[in-house]
């Protein structure tokens, strides 16, 4: 488990806190619809109250944001969203044909909670894939996939999830995580403890 949770320095911890407060203040102001001093001050108060009364589990964000890579990740994400939405819509209107589906296990290479969550969010927002279960300890996502033609199609889909993970880590991962995704994927699932 220790390798899953890189110890955060006080500085990283403080940085994550500040990011959380900024995000909450921004949300508060957007909810009110305008930026005023009053909204800013009440927003800060509300943000601190939330962080004190509903403490979040520590997010182990130890990477750094690379804007160009992040833009690339978002662009690919929205194209995936568009293409897959049209595919599912097409499936819906193909009367008399039952779409096949399958559940795939995908072993991610970076096992941090944050990576698991973000990959799961991105994968499951794209229509045609739905997270059925997640193995946090071993970093495995179990993904229900709609419209699978055959087993080869399923393998291509799994490779696509790993490519998505690679894009995400390149966008916001740490250097150590970058090295992890450059290794070949652990495809042999028998290696895991039973």
């Amino acid at each position, binding site marked *: 488990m220790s390798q899953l949770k890189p110890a955060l320095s006080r500085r990283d911890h403080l940085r994550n806190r500040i990011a959380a407060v900024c995000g909450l203040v921004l*949300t508060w*102001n*957007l*909810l009110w*619809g*305008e930026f005023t001093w009053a909204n800013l001050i009440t927003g800060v108060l509300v943000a601190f109250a939330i962080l004190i009364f509903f403490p979040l589990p520590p997010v182990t964000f130890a990477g750094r944001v690379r804007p160009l890579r992040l833009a690339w990740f978002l662009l690919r994400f929205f194209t995936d*969203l*568009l293409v*897959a*939405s049209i595919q*599912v*819509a097409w*499936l*819906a*209107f193909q*009367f008399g044909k*039952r*779409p*096949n*589906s*399958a*559940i*795939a*296990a995908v072993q991610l290479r970076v096992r941090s909670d944050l990576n698991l969550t973000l990959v*799961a*969010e991105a994968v*499951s*927002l*794209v*229509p*045609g*894939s*739905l*997270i*059925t*279960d*997640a*193995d*946090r*300890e071993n970093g*495995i996502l*179990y993904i*229900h996939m*709609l419209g*699978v033609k*055959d*087993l080869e199609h*399923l393998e291509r889909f799994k490779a696509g999830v790993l490519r998505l993970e690679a894009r995400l880590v390149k966008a916001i991962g740490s250097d150590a995580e970058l090295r992890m995704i450059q290794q070949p994927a652990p495809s042999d699932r028998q290696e895991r403890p*039973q």
Partner: protein
Amino acid sequence: MTLQTALDTLAAVFMIGGAILSLSAGVALLRFPDLLSRMHAATKPQVLGLILVLNGCAIRIGTLKEITTLLLIVVFQLATSPVAAHMIGRAAYRDDYVPTGELLKDELAPDAERLWKAQREGRG
């Protein structure tokens, strides 16, 4: 063609596109054979459909105050919809509402017992 007409046309394209996607989600909900397939339809094309409709609204309204609210709706929709779909799918699988025999392949089945035990013990 003036700028206003161009914007109106763009807004119309977004809204109609969004409406068609939402309609397809409804049709899929009726037609798809099992719960998990229906969850795909209920949560995903509808998200893009909503984004498109709100885009259309943003173009038509065009004031910053409303657009920020629309932006917030999109963000919350993107953040919450996968979680809801996952929770329902997960509960359904555990309670045997998923006809696993009809799946092309089920890679969760061999790991299920080990995984659920780990989760019960708080390691999941």
